[in-house]
């Protein structure tokens, strides 16, 4: 069994209130499904959109990331799966995909 970090990118910014509520409920259902299968190793955290980016030897501090909605990392979780293929399979249930977002699946280096 290996661990995988899921990085969620993208935001559902449009939709009626009813659709927004439904989107939220889909997230809950997906998390519950992962949890019930014993695959949710670490529930991780949601991230705020605003922050700072520090870069270079000059340690330049900028407001950011201010990426486009589809590139913003909104949060992460850590999942347990047999291998990368299975981890990718699990990620396909993520509601972010239906709203044009993406899930980056990265094996955690444990050794």
């Amino acid at each position: 069994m290996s661990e995988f970090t899921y990085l969620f990118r993208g935001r559902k910014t449009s939709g009626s209130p009813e659709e927004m509520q439904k989107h939220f409920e889909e997230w809950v259902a997906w998390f519950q499904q992962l949890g019930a299968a014993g695959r949710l190793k670490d529930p991780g955290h949601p991230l705020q959109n605003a922050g700072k980016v520090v870069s270079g030897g000059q340690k330049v501090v900028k407001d950011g990331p201010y990426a486009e909605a589809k590139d913003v990392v909104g949060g992460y979780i850590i999942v347990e799966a047999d291998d990368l293929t299975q981890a990718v399979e699990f990620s396909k249930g993520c509601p972010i995909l239906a709203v044009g977002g993406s899930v980056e699946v990265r094996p955690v280096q444990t050794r």
Partner: protein
Amino acid sequence: MELTEHLFRHEWGRMVGAVTRIFGVHNLALAEDVVQEAFCRATEVWPWRGVPENPSAWLMATAKNCALDVLRRERTARTFAPDLGRLLESEGALAPVIEEAFGPHAMQDDLLRMMFSCCHPHLAQEAQVALMLHILCGFSVAEIASALVSSHAAIEKRIARGKKTLARSRRLFDVTEPGEFSSRLPAVDTALYLLFNEGYHGANAAFAVRTELCREAMRLTAILLEHPLCATPRTYALAALMCLNAARLPGRIDASGNLSSLFDQDRSAWDRPLIGEGMSFLELSAQGSDAGEYHLEAAIASIHAAAHAIEDTDWAKVVSLYDSLMTMRPTPIIALNRAIAIAQRDGPDRGIEEIEAIADADRLTSYPFYWAALGEFELRRHRCGFAQEHFRAALTQARNDAERHFFSQRLQAAQTATRP
């Protein structure tokens, strides 16, 4: 914690109302963006953190922060609410102004202010209803178009025009001015009445959608009644007619999901507590001397609601109420309903006479229940051939599958009755 059904939609109106008061009505789109962002954040945070103990308060607080960000960022580039101009100019006053606008009392007023603003006299009634559904009830253009069985483009145009009219008015309706308040109240009542009727008599076949439209009208009417100036006999009568009619909605669908007419409904399915509520509103509406259209409609609904069987209905009373209603609003539909009541009281021959005497009856020929009423009367007179013809006409005018199914059943009944 589970989220209450339609919570987002129900919070939408209050939140947009509060933000619009600060931003000014010409910035309505910006206010909608701020509220949308709050919902967006909820979908991003709650899956991890769980639904907060008080989700409404969380959404308000988030919208408040977003509004504050917008004000700080665009304070110099935009003009916001003219009457808050001075306050919004000074950075230090921003937070308290926002705090005040989001206070529970202010938000109730904001919703009311928005309701009255949507009923702007320059707007056609159908535009007022569409705006209410959009701004107060949080339905998208697509959802309104589907609920009202209208085209997306038509609703979009209606709402865009309505918003433009609102923006041009520069300021929201002033709810603290009693004179203006009372003079616009009838328009608000009418818009709510139309909204209710869209659900109750509208063309949408989906029972859930119809119920939802009725519920929205009742929710807004209840908010109206909380304000002392709105609690007039007329508005009480409106609330009464909504409750008393809506209480019978569950009976309209039988166990297999098919339409059921008032004559065959399972009356045990009617919502008794709602009937009780309607009766209390009806009592409250009786203060004062004026008995308007809503009073009469509510009284008719109360007779149906009180009858335990179709034959227990006081049809004489129903007829006399329709007589009075005809003097106030002589529409072909009311004339048709009156004819049906007369047929119940005096038999089908009289019913047909009354239908034939309806002025502008040609306006009813596209209304399927006009043909269905004629069909029922002929069936009772054992003139089954005529009955079949009428039910066939009803079928061709049916507006959805549920109606088509219902009329074809009636047609079958007429065909069965023909056979010796």
